[in-house]
């Protein structure tokens, strides 16, 4: 029983002084390279993705999970969590989503399941910010129920031909490589699913950008594969191992969504409070009315609870635990809260909250995706319910 043991425990059992330094670096990057341009980019519904990607790559935002031999600075998942949190505060869900999807989706599949040659070809330039990845799992008829995907992969000589449609694919129409889930053995259900890396110039692949209610700067696309021919080295991991890989990667994707949601909700609450302090009604700042003070206190409390729940899942994941129920809890709880915070923030803005010239409407639209993407709240509760033996 020694009291001094606590001196050696990092903050939340996670963050060291080095992580705090990294946080400053990422925050500075966001303040310089992203934040000043957010309004302009959002109005345009696009942003100079290649340019920002390259800058972020130079700062090292895509390498925290990756070893130095692939140009990374890791592996350090806590450092990666810090990067996620700071990107989520950039003021544009779309920019955070584009960069975050690149950081956490397609390249990490190549890192984890790829051969040495595949890693050199797709992972290294992705870490450097010179190449953009996208992950294509969802289909028009299949979202959270991954085992039911319809996209077919048929052997064609040594290579493959892909047929089917993928949708809601972040960075899908602008990516340099797309990790695609397809079934090569429909009779085997989940054990028939394999992963393939497809490049955009493959014959038979076409992409169409989809308009979205939020995440306006990021490209969301539908990809059509019409007998799309790809070479043998496109297969990522073993044939039939795709479902397990997706399930495994989902945990990190969901954890990252929880981390982002906690961070974004905090930024949204700060925005709401700043407005409520400046805005007067009935002779005093709106922030001084007790009803609002208590509402802000409740939201801040729930954000703190979401943070503790998310860090609990992160600690377990980083330690190598399976952590599926914990991650699922954090994902639905934090993303639902982010949405609720955004709705309250919009409310305190009154009429201005409904106007496009105030940023709170964007927080509101952007936050709405959280309880849907990466597995809906309903699917998270199914997973948790199953873990309880129900």
């Amino acid at each position: 029983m020694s009291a001094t043991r606590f001196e050696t425990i990092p903050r939340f059992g996670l963050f060291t002084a080095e992580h705090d330094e990294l946080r400053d670096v990422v925050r500075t990057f966001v303040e310089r390279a992203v934040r000043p341009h957010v309004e302009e980019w959002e109005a345009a519904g696009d942003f100079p993705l290649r340019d920002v990607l390259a800058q972020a790559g130079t700062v090292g935002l895509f390498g925290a999970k990756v070893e130095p031999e692939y140009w990374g600075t890791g592996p350090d998942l806590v450092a990666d969590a810090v990067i996620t949190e700071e990107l989520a505060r950039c003021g544009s869900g779309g920019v955070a989503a584009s960069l975050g999807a690149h950081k956490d989706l397609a390249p990490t599949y190549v890192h984890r399941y790829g051969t040495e040659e595949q890693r050199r070809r797709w992972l290294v330039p992705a870490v450097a910010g010179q190449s953009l990845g996208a992950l294509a799992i969802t289909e028009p008829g299949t979202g959270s129920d991954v085992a039911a995907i319809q996209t077919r992969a048929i052997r064609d000589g040594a290579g493959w031909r892909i047929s089917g449609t993928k949708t809601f694919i972040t960075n899908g129409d602008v990516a340099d490589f797309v990790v695609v889930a397809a079934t090569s053995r429909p009779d085997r259900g989940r054990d028939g699913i394999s992963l393939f890396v497809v490049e955009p110039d493959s014959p038979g692949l076409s992409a169409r950008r989809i308009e979205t209610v939020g995440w306006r700067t990021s490209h969301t696309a539908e990809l059509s594969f019409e007998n799309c021919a790809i070479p043998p080295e496109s297969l990522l991991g073993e044939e039939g191992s795709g479902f397990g890989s997706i399930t495994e990667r989902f945990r990190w994707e969901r954890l990252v969504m929880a981390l982002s949601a906690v961070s974004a909700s905090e930024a949204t609450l700060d925005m709401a409070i700043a407005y409520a302090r400046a805005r007067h009604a009935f002779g005093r700042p709106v922030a001084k009315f007790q009803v609002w003070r208590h509402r802000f206190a409740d939201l801040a409390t729930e954000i703190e609870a979401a943070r503790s729940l998310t860090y609990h899942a992160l600690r377990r994941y980083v330690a190598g635990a399976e952590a599926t129920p914990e991650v699922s809890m954090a994902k639905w709880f934090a993303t639902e809260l982010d949405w609720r915070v955004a709705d309250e923030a919009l409310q305190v803005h009154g009429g201005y909250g409904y106007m496009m010239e105030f940023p709170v409407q964007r927080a509101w639209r952007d936050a709405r995706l959280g309880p849907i993407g990466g597995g809906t709240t309903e699917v998270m509760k199914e997973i948790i319910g199953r873990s309880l033996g129900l």
Partner: protein
Amino acid sequence: MLHPLFTPEHEVFRSSVRRFVESELAPHTEEWEREGRFPDWVFKRMGDLGFLGVRYPERYGGQGGDWGHAIVVAEEMARTGSGGVGMAVAVQSEMATPPILKFGTEEQKQRYLVPAIRGEKIACLGISEPNAGSDVAGIETTARRAGERWVINGQKTFITNGARADFCVLVTRSDREAGHEGFSLFLVDADAPGFTVSRELHKLGMHSSDTAELVFDDVHVSADRLLGEEGKGFVEIMWELQGERLIGAAGTIAGAQLAFEGTLAYAKQREAFGRPIGSFQANRHRFATMATELEAARQLTYDTALAWERGEYPVRQISMAKLYAGVVANRVVNGCLQMFGGHGYATGSGIERAWRDARLIRIGGGTDEVMREIISRTMGL
């Protein structure tokens, strides 16, 4: 995998507390609930086992542990199956006595703290009055100097352990003109002339624990019973409340967790419309929601305790942990009662008791509303 607040040694300690609670306390719960109090031997026995001084230095008979140990005790006491015993024990070891260690003289520690840790003296904490609860600054019990002594007059209410305490850590107003600088704490023996237990109070829940109204009628105490600095009582009691709230949060969540687990087991075997009620999707999702909120409340409490041990004084987080634990626990036990249907509404299921007992945390130790005031003030609002 343990939260960093805990080590494997804490888990060994947890099993020994659990063994004691399950074998020596839990069998008596029904009887104690009926009688409206538990016997004094519980304090003595827990003192002998070292469970009343886990965070206190060994030189005073404590175990030299940390917040992790105190939280383990609070959590395991929930396994008595009622909130009352755990609350009374927490008042003894985590609410009434910490100010003695923190602010007391060596003589006061020897006289009050050491026997309290042994379970030989029972302690109560006198803050609330009929007209002042969460608004501590509004208390009216006075202490005035009379030569070398102090004379105390006033009334305290809702005092846990009050009917049988050997001494009371009492908050008084010693200088009416000095505002927040006019409060002082005293150690008052229960056998002091003028100190009476005017009545015992009946409560909605927490039945195993006795609650009293105390009257101080010209109670004379010597100058050496002033606890801490004269005029500093308000700050001192605010410090006390931080630990009280943290331990209250931990115990509350543990109680709700047990109710949740019992309800989950029930929902797996109770059938309706031809299948277990837990297999209905609406109930499955309700359980998922409850499990998530409990975990969030628990981790918030652990993180708060960890921050405190790491050297922060996390007043905002403590208020958040207490507020959130109370809100979640009440929602969870209410959901549990619903799952039990008619059996939940009938006394004897255990759920209705958990439901009644959980209600107190949103009032005691500072109401939800006061927590929101503190939180919003620390946010500059």
